[in-house]
């Protein structure tokens, strides 16, 4: 049982996301994270799904996804050299003075950006893999995280290899 990152190329049509997520829930597969957006090919979207399962379960997930008419291609990136990123927006307490300075220092170490400054809080934007964001969040907790928004993971292969519709 380990997390698998699946890249799913789909028709950009109404209902396609609910077809994909409905399949996961009714067949008892768990989604750890999910991200959807348009991609380089017109009329298509790419869904990145992180799910946990043994090899047989993941094989079944991929086969079932492939059966959906609106799914064009399913690739498991897990065994490949890849880059993964997610984005988090974190609103953290930062009273003017020492705590604000410390928060800003942490932001700089994690290469997070301060995208909003309020009188008693700041909003940080940080991109990275899951572990990096987890680490920053943990460090910020002592100042008081007021709100945390995270995207699902997105992933891309390193080098010139691609996940495209052409087989």
């Amino acid at each position, binding site marked *: 049982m380990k997390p698998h990152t699946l890249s799913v190329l789909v028709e950009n049509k109404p209902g396609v996301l*609910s077809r994909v997520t409905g399949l996961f829930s009714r067949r008892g597969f768990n989604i750890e994270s999910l991200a959807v957006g348009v991609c380089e090919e017109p009329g298509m979207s790419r869904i990145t799904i992180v799910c946990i399962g043994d090899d047989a379960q993941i094989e079944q997930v991929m086969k079932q996804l492939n059966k959906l008419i609106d799914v064009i291609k399913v690739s498991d990136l897990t065994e490949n050299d890849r880059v993964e990123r997610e984005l988090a927006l974190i609103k953290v307490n930062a009273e003017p003075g020492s705590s604000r300075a410390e928060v800003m220092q942490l932001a700089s170490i994690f290469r997070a950006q301060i995208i909003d400054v309020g009188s008693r809080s700041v909003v940080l934007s940080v991109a990275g893999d899951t572990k990096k964001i987890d680490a920053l969040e943990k460090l910020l907790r002592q100042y008081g995280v007021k709100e945390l928004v995270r995207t699902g993971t997105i992933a891309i292969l390193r080098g010139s290899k691609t996940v495209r519709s052409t087989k």
Partner: protein
Amino acid sequence: MKTGAKILIEGLQREGVKTIFGYPGGVVLPIYDELYHSSLQHILVRHEQAAAHAADGFARASGRVGVCLATSGPGACNLVTGIATAYMDSVPIVALTGQVPTSLLGNDAFQESDITGITMPITKHNYLVKRTEDVGRIVREAFFIARTGRPGPVLIDLPKDVSTREIDFEYPETAAVSLRGYQPTFRGHPRQIEKAMELLLEAERPLLYVGGGVITSEAAGELCQFAESLMIPVTTTLMGLGAIPCDHPLNLGMLGMHGTRYANYAVTESDLLIAIGVRFDDRVTGKLDTFASQAKIIHIDIDPAEIGKNKRVDVPIVGDAKSVLQEMLARVRKKKDYEKWMARIRGWKEKYPLRYPKDGSLRPQFVIEELSALLKGEGIIVSEVGQNQMWTAQYYCFRHPRTWITSGGLGTMGYGFPAAMGAHFARPDQVIFDIAGDGSFQMNIQELGTVSHYRIPVKVAILNNRFLGMVRQWQELFYDRRYSFTELPPVDFVKIANAYGIDGIKVEDPGEVRSALKSAIETDGPFVLDFRIEREENVFPMVPAGAAINEMIGGQCE
């Protein structure tokens, strides 16, 4: 200029549809108005569920796509059981539903239901048509998707304004459909086929385990040829009955929960299982770990997701059963002698035949045997679900594919009667029987109205035990005979049939069975037979739930 409704009807006719089963309502009025002028035959059912089952029965009997039509909301929702039944058994149907106008979608409008949302898990694909311009393309795609690859139901939801609006539209002459996300694999991989043939030469105790996929791909001929050319015994699933004639020396009948002892013993001792068009369903395998545990497995199926789903497979072959069997036949070079294995199987066949008590009381198995003898295994036999279904599967001698129509995967009571109506429109030349229980028959008994209306010659043989028999059997065996809500009060089915203008006979004596069946067959039009059978007769042999399939109870020699 054409309305969406006209484009729809024209599309159906272009797909070769002659008959549709439906029920009108508010938002399908434009479609019904178009039907009024059309040469399409429309059969008005008495409940939308029956329209879906009739389309399904039509599809199973003919191999063509069946079509049903219902209005929005309750009409569409009533199709759901029928669509799910078709989905579980991979039956190609196109279900057409009306929908509230696009301007009201999502407003909880009168008779609005999200039928594409509701049927997403039970259709191969579905469409909510938003523009009249898309109707023509979607009709073609829907039929293409329904009948190709692993067939299945496709639903098209048509909002009223989409049906009403007029546009300039002509169907293109070339009917090619191209979907970039849908390219089913048809031909098996040659290297995998080669590997399968090698395993056959290594095997001592091979067994063909054959299911509905062989019927669907019209591969029964190839299957028998393959089995005969290598002398390999064949067991079929419930859905595969008819793929090989019942009395063929290589046929072991049905396997699984109510299969023959010899089929289940053969699976257990086999060292090579060649599974074709099957899905290792729990009713077949019993306890999975012990199912064919001595065997290497070759699995041929058009749906890659079925391969390795329940059971680890040694040689997976994704492809159409007919095409793969043809390839395998072409590669039969050396033959191996499996005579020792066949002799062992013949021994089991002699020792453990299907049997039931013959004590002068009216037994359901006898009714089926008599019908089988009368029709010589010809005709189309449809069943309901439960004991009636299992007795028919065990005792009717099927000789041809598409002559046995039953709800296998979903196990839908009430399926048989409307499916039999549909089968008639596919094969009007055939005698059609619905083998029913008194429970199942009462689930769609309103269709007596339809068969009477159109004089559809469906013969209903009710194996009437005034119980929900299969549930009662489980209560008897596993719940200490606590018959919780399984006893039904007596019903005079002949009187009910008469009220619809249909003839019927009540039969209580085994001596009257044959003449009653004859009267039903010889009567033009529908007929109802009410067989008052032994009330607590069981279906044996039986594998208790969760047991290994060679651990069967009942039906053995005394």
